[in-house]
């Protein structure tokens, strides 16, 4: 695959983006990875960096948490595998949360906006601390709702055919709000980001609760790091991208088959266009192989995401199941 897939994480300052990224990488980098999904860094220095940050996280004490991200955007080149088979590579951008609310001429804001136009999947990080009780109006500002919704609208209007990228709403620090029914939190999320749940909005949205450890809510310095669900947003991002590629390829194949049929109509035409026909057939065969391969990957990811029963999928504002959507 020549074109690199881009995943971008949005979220206010302090939402836990960097922590999530570290935990996601390390959990998917251990041994055979999570549920067979494995990540590795393209640059070995990045691996060292993630390991060092992870080491700090699992060490207990006040200094365990990563420092605030600077105005300089960092790009990570990551490789994704399933059962040790390489599936694809993607780029991951790490940037400061404050960029959402900053002036558009700030250098990193410019890059972020341009990046959003070509992103395959958006990870929208919202801290669970805001949902520990009924959502307050003050939280809107702390979540940077208006900034995020603004970026979402801009992203959709700049996308091809207005088809927006897939979105994962990652509820970080879910341990802080696990006391509340999930349905209430989902309702509040829909109030926070109405464009994502609009009836004809064409947004494919997954809501995924994550935590770095259930004991952290009571003791952030000494609680154990035992991440949960951190791999699901990445798996979904790539699932959505493969799904898109699959649909695109099916469309191309259908068109190629129609052209093939036109060329093959009548004995004389088939004879004259013999070389063309052979090429078309070969192309169609390759596309079918690729579609088959993609469907295999998609099926595995879909099953995995559905099996978890920890995530919720929405399309056009309606809740759907993975199987339903895939079909």
């Amino acid at each position, binding site marked *: 695959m020549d074109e690199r897939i881009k995943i971008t994480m949005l979220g206010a*300052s*302090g939402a836990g983006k960097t922590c999530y990224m570290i935990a996601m990488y390390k959990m998917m980098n251990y041994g055979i990875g999570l549920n067979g999904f494995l990540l590795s860094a393209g*640059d070995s*220095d*990045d691996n*060292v*960096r993630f390991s*060092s*940050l992870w080491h*700090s996280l699992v060490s207990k004490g*006040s*200094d365990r*948490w*990563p*420092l*605030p991200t*600077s*105005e*300089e*955007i*960092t*790009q990570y080149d990551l490789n994704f595998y399933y059962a040790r088979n390489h599936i694809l590579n993607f780029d991951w951008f790490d940037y*400061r*949360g*404050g960029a959402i*609310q*900053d*002036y558009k001429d700030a*250098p990193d804001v410019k*890059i972020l906006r341009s990046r959003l136009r070509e992103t395959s999947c958006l990870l929208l990080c919202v801290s669970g601390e805001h949902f520990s009780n009924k959502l307050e109006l003050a939280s809107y*500002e*702390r979540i*940077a709702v208006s900034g995020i919704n603004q970026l979402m609208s801009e992203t959709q209007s700049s996308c091809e055919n207005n088809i927006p990228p897939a979105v994962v709403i990652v509820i970080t620090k879910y341990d802080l709000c696990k006391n509340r029914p999930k349905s209430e939190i989902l309702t509040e999320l829909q109030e926070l980001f109405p464009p994502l749940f609009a009836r004809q909005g064409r947004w494919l949205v997954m809501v995924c609760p994550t935590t770095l450890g259930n004991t952290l809510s009571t003791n*952030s310095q000494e609680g154990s790091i035992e991440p949960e669900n951190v791999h699901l947003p990445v798996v979904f991002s790539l699932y959505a991208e493969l799904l898109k590629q699959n649909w695109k390829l099916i469309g191309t194949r259908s068109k190629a088959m129609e052209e093939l049929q036109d060329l093959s109509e009548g004995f004389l035409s088939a004879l004259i266009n013999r070389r063309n026909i052979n090429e078309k057939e070969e192309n169609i065969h390759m596309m079918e192989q690729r579609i088959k391969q993609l469907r295999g990957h998609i099926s595995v990811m879909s099953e995995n995401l559905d099996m978890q029963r920890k995530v919720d999928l929405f399309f056009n504002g309606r809740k759907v199941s993975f199987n339903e959507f895939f079909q």
Partner: protein
Amino acid sequence: MSSFNKWLIIGYSKMLYSIDDQWNDTYVIPCTYKDSDALVNRWKNVLWYKAAGDRITRTLIESKEPMYGWHQIDKETCIFEMLCSAASIDEKYLPLDINKNALAQMTVYLGYITQPVPNLSKYNPSVEFFNRACREIINAWDAGTDNSVYYSPSIKDKFHAPFPQEKEHAYFLGYNNQLNQEDRGTEEATVPQLDSTSGDYWAPIAYSRTYSQDYRILAIPSDVESEEAWIKIHINASIRYPEQLRTSVRWCIFSKENLCVFGISCMADHIADHSVSDEVNRRIPIFLGYVSTDSNPKIPDRNIEDFRRLFSIIQDRWHNHTSFDRLNSTYEKTYFTSIQSDNTESNSDLNPSLLLNSYPDVVRVWKDSKPNQDLLWRLAVMSHEYASLCLGLFAEKDARMGPFTNVSLVNKTFDNIEDHYIENYNELRPHSLSEDKETALIKHEEPLNTQLYGLILQLWHNLIDSMKKDLLG
């Protein structure tokens, strides 16, 4: 580090608007310091204007040009002074004459009184130099009713001499230049021919987060605000992978035409000597440094103690709890002052142009070690080219992605000398620094020695030539 130069505005003229026909005196006297009264009294006693008498006034009116001078009134006190017509201050004072005398002929005396006597070779009295004092005279006129004394307020505006902005802060803004007798000149030299662009004048610069607000410039002199973007590119590169700053500090120097910055990136609590964290309890990285607009300023040696004082400038801003308000990001204005360079080490054995890379499109990478850090700093200090340096970055990627042309790296093993090119696939690299060119990383083994330098240079030139051929061919 010695005491701070005190600079206070003084002025004397007639009242601009006289209610009656009595032309009262207007004095502009400073209220910045508790001991200013004593200074002002001494000044009044030696008031040059009065002493000069009518002869000077007549000369001035005839020539229509301001007259400048300096006057050392005692061992430790000096006055910079200007005698001019009111119209020299502002043209609007030229025609004002309501059946009175022509104001164009009203003479004004103004200037600065300073302690201790500064290095006079650093100053070139001119209308610009006295601009700040002129404005205070206008303020005095505007404020004047029947009160003939006007107290000049705290000085916060742009000024290229070391003016205190707040009395508490004044002592944090720099260090007095040690002056020898030769530099002081003599009292006979009343109109010194001086060059204000030479010397080692620096203004503090600070960049960090605050308790609740995102990263931003917290202190900068007005003169270089327009260069903020360029400065931030370097600062951000120097705090890349900030977790490493938990256990170490990074030093950097970067310069371009008439702008030079040096400073330190570290954890704020490291320099503040007390806990500094944001609202979600994260420790905070910070950059503290000095900026100079001189063409070739002398950069002092690395001394973390010199930077502790700078933290005081921004301390008040630290707990600014106004969240999410980028509009509130006003700077702390800082001012240029002289810094005593302790860098006395002989550098006659070194040739920076031989060793430091000043090409913006390539990065020269060194192993981070104490001897290399010392050597590279000395080279950067000596360099007359626009070579930039950051000591103690983490990995090769950080060097490649950043704007620095010379970098020492922590996470790198240098077994042998080797050279290679790296494709500059870097969409994040600032466009002003590199566009579609290759980045070369040249690695050096430790220890550095001069025998290797020639070899390295040769390799370097070969690489550049080969790159050019590839590009052209």
